[in-house]
């Protein structure tokens, strides 16, 4: 039977081409994702092969997923602690370190250097170079505010050499100094590879912290002493507010943090790979169903000469195994190729990530083959089983056909799934909020499956209606009837497109609603501040001081932000100048007020108040980078895009760990002055700070929408693959249909159908499939997009926006895609020799 299966694949290899490509693309996605993330993480892990110290003492991390850049004050340790640790028996010496995120190196053109999204770090030069997490490569350590060091990749990129004047922006101020040291990038922890600015220790404390202190203490242990014992002794000395880790633990922590972040990255890629494979499954199902139908005579003959049912089924499954294995092998190769290309691209960026060979792990190979072969076998199984049920007499009959299960079973399963969908939707609408969107996501998946199950029935009625605008000319009627003649095939082909389009249109509706909601909210919260000063990262408080001195500026209100945690909810904590939320930002109070926002008081957004059941006057515990604080609710505000945060007065913000840098400045322009002039003057005052942008309200709103566009573009790109496979599915169905209907096409050609009419006939069939799939997908996607907007009404998606034009374009494009999909099959059909076609057995 294995031989028969192999022979059959070889004999019908052309018919399996698209099937193999579908497996290949899906597996390539899986393989590419795994190989690339493995390779990148292996490369990054090389960086922290080991911390140079024996033991590292650092402040306890109170916030998980603490983003590097915020207005939070860096948690520090004192020099005193370092000397006390030095006194612990077994300790050979201590060396305090200072390393904080934030800062910018300016290029020779005065513009900030682009480190491809990696935040720049700044460090103080340690007493003992051996315990630092960076190394001196050239020059000598900097001394004072007139000297600094930068990392080699940045220096190389920007063409800086020892002795050059380099301008950097620190949290305290902008500084121009002589380059005396070229160092490696930071080499420790998750920030490995990031650009680095270095000063001598005292200067670093002044510029980076604004106060004395260290971010960690490297400890060397006497040779011969047990590191674990010494570590334990230090732990007893420093208490529970300080963490004490051995170098091995530091490396392990960094590796697991890296694995976490890569885990998320590869999970997203694998999700898209899963979608691609799922869509591809329909193509495989169709291919095998059609091949079994076409070969029913041959299979019936095998039964007649004594092959058992199981043997027939196994023959077909063997074919699937071969296709799966071939597709997986090619897919794995393509995946490795793509990963290599991505890696080469990353290398070309010169990120100072040491190169690593492509990491093709055994797990990856096994996963690729398991997925590729598994999916193919699973998709081929229904056809294989039906082939086994073929009666031996079938070989004798002219119109031998493979028995098909009645659509009733599918209808029942589909109906059950749709019922479950309705129940989940009902639950989601009562629950509301973010958790409800997860229920709706599940419901959408069930709805798609339900429609897939019932779609043969839908297609039976939908095709005629959809195609009525195309007229009733003979080729159109023939094409339409071809689409109607096998509802399973048509609907399976359309389902692939449906799923892709449902995902895209759902996301389009959500994204458009998000944008519209931001717009609406920004409009609602525009206060008296006409100018907004902001940057991608926290900027020096000197910026605000400069702006305040500009003629025509009536007032400057500072807003600072940092991450926090409230009962396990990750939130933003904002510190604001007095009066900021009473005018410069327009805020609607649901209860309480901001009047005299005193020490220990907070204004919180409505959704947070509801979730935590907090009312005005009640107390809550806020966790920040520096620890826990108890605060009192002074007011509850309606959702506010500009300040979606727990809002504190600046003094309180400082008490709970806030630093001295600013996030945004809200600037009021004095009455009777020219707005444009003031704006220009403000901008001209800030030339020292090239990262800082001065915007009016309009431009600010635009900048807030930007991230959504980026996310949407990325998702669309990934889903394009799914659409591509769906289109391949249409091509596949048409091409196999042409082979199956060779005789019929020959007859049509004989009685006078010309080439263009033949093409038209196939186009109409393709358009019918494409329209069916895209309209169903659009319907489901838009409905669930609307549902998600509805349950998120209170949580940021206040406005529903259905971008009709974009969605209409999607439908028109999918019809056009149908036309394209028909090109190759109709070319094949036109090439059929009429005489041989009508003579085909």
């Amino acid at each position: 039977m294995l031989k028969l299966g192999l022979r059959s694949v070889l004999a019908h290899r052309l018919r399996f081409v698209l099937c193999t490509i579908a497996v290949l693309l899906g597996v390539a996605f899986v393989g590419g994702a795994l190989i690339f993330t493995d390779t990148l993480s292996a490369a990054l892990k090389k960086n922290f092969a080991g911390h140079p110290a024996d033991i590292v003492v650092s402040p306890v991390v109170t916030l998980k997923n603490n983003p590097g850049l915020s207005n939070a004050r860096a948690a520090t340790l004192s020099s005193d602690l370092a000397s006390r640790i030095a006194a612990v028996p077994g300790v050979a010496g201590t060396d305090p370190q200072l390393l904080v995120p934030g800062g910018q190196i300016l290029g020779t053109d005065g513009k900030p250097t682009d480190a491809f999204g990696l935040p720049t770090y700044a460090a103080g030069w340690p007493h003992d170079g051996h315990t630092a997490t960076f190394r001196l490569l050239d020059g000598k350590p900097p001394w004072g505010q007139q000297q600094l060091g930068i990392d080699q990749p940045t220096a190389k990129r920007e063409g800086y050499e020892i002795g050059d004047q380099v301008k950097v922006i620190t949290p305290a101020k902008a500084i121009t100094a002589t380059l005396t040291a070229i160092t490696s990038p930071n080499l420790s922890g998750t920030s490995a590879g990031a650009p680095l600015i270095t000063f001598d220790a005292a200067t670093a404390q002044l510029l980076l912290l604004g106060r004395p202190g260290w971010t960690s203490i490297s400890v060397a242990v006497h040779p011969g002493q047990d590191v674990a014992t010494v570590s334990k002794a230090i732990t007893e000395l420093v208490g529970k507010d300080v963490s004490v880790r051995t170098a091995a633990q530091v490396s392990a922590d960094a590796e697991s943090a890296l694995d976490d972040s890569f885990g998320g990255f590869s999970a997203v890629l694998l999700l898209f790979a899963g979608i691609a494979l799922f869509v591809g499954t329909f193509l495989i199902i169709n291919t095998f169903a059609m091949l079994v139908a076409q070969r029913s005579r041959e299979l019936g003959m095998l039964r007649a000469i004594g092959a058992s049912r199981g043997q027939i089924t196994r023959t077909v499954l063997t074919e699937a195994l071969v296709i799966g294995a071939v597709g997986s092998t090619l897919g794995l190769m393509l995946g490795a190729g793509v990963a290599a290309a991505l890696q080469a691209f990353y290398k070309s960026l010169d990120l100072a990530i040491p190169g690593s060979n492509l990491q093709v792990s055994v797990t990856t190979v096994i996963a690729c083959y398991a997925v590729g072969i598994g999916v193919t076998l699973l998709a081929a199984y229904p056809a294989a089983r039906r082939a086994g049920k073929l009666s031996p007499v079938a070989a004798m009959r002219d119109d031998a056909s493979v028995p098909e299960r009645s659509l009733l079973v599918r209808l029942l399963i589909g109906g059950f799934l749709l019922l479950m969908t309705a129940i989940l939707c009902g639950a989601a609408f009562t629950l509301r909020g973010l958790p409800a969107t997860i229920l709706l996501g599940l419901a959408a998946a069930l709805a798609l499956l339900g429609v897939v199950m019932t779609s043969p029935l839908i297609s039976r009625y939908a095709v005629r209606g959809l195609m009525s605008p195309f007229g009733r000319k003979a080729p159109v009627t023939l094409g339409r009837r071809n689409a109607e003649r096998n509802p399973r095939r048509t609907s399976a082909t359309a389902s692939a497109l449906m799923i892709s389009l449902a995902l895209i249109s759902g996301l389009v509706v959500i994204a458009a609603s998000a944008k519209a909601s931001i717009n609406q909210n920004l409009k609602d919260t525009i206060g008296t501040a006409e100018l907004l000063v902001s940057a991608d990262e926290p900027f020096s408080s000197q910026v605000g001081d400069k702006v305040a001195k500009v003629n025509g500026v009536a007032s400057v209100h500072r807003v600072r932000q940092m991450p926090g945690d409230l009962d396990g909810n990750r939130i933003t904590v904002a510190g604001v100048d007095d009066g900021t939320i009473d005018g410069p930002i327009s805020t609607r109070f649901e209860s309480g007020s901001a009047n005299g926002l005193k020490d220990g008081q907070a204004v919180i957004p409505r959704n947070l108040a509801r979730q935590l059941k907090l009312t005005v006057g009640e107390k809550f515990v806020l966790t920040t980078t520096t620890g826990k604080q108890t605060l009192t609710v002074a007011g509850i505000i309606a959702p506010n895009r500009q300040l979606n945060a727990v809002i504190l007065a600046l003094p309180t913000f400082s008490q709970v760990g806030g630093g001295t840098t600013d996030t945004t400045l809200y600037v009021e322009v004095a009455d009777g002055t020219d707005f444009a002039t003031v704006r220009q003057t403000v901008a001209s005052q800030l030339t020292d700070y090239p990262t800082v942008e001065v915007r009016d309200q309009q431009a600010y709103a635009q900048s807030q929408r930007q991230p959504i566009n980026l996310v949407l573009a990325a998702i669309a790109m990934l889903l394009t693959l799914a659409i591509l496979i769906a289109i391949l599915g249409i091509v596949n169905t048409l091409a196999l249909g042409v082979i199956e209907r060779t005789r019929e096409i020959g007859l049509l050609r004989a009685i006078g159908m010309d080439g263009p009419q033949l093409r038209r006939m196939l186009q109409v069939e393709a358009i019918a499939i494409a329209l069916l799939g895209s309209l169903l997908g659009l319907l489901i996607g838009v409905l669930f997009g609307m549902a998600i907007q509805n349950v998120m009404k209170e949580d940021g998606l206040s406005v529903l926006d259905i971008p009709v034009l974009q969605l209409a374009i999607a439908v028109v494009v999918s019809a056009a895609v149908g036309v394209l999909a028909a090109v190759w099959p109709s070319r094949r059909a036109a090439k059929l020799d009429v005489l041989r076609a009508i003579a085909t057995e």
Partner: protein
Amino acid sequence: MAIRTSGLGKSYGTTGDTRVEALADVSLEFGKGRFTAIMGPSGSGKSTLLHCLAGLDRPTAGQVMLGDVELTRLDEKRLTHLRRDRIGFVFQAFNLVPTLTALENITLPLDLANRKADAEWLDKVITTIGLQDRLKHKPSELSGGQQQRVACARALASRPEVVFADEPTGNLDSRSSADVLGFLHRSVRDFGQTVVMVTHDPTAASYADRVVFLADGRLQDELLDPTADSVLERMKKLDTQEAG
């Protein structure tokens, strides 16, 4: 004269031993309003001759003239349109498009040409085949004989200059065969249609006005006003000639 061939030849392969001559130097005329049968043993070239006459195959020598049009000179597209507009077909089997009803199958060549059917003529044809009550049925709901009668009606629907029939009764029982042949005969007698039919069945040939005999790709003989017996006799004679 409806259709005429002169020096028609069809050979496969190019040189020497591999060269196979399916037709050689066939010159024939088929009169208007006549029913002609082409007979011959398998491999005699009778089907090839029919395909060349009908513009489905290209001869390698000689000419085919349909009226004043030389088929051999037409390109693929013109040939297709000529088949659609001026020629009718009845094949041995698989004559109908399964997704279309009987009536839709009958009018298909007209629909492909964007021409309107002549309602009176269509009525007459449909009445003659006697399937008025089955017009809405799909081919799978019709018997083999009924399917062939629908195919005949389709061949006549556009009032073509010639109807070509390739073993139209090859798959039918004798009752259904008689129906189909009777219909072709009547279309010649009553409507003045020109019919050219390939068959190997003497009874079928006896419905024709004239029988031409083919062997080894060459014209051997012809017979006017044939009966089943006279056809059979002539075939035997040809066989013995071959053997001798």
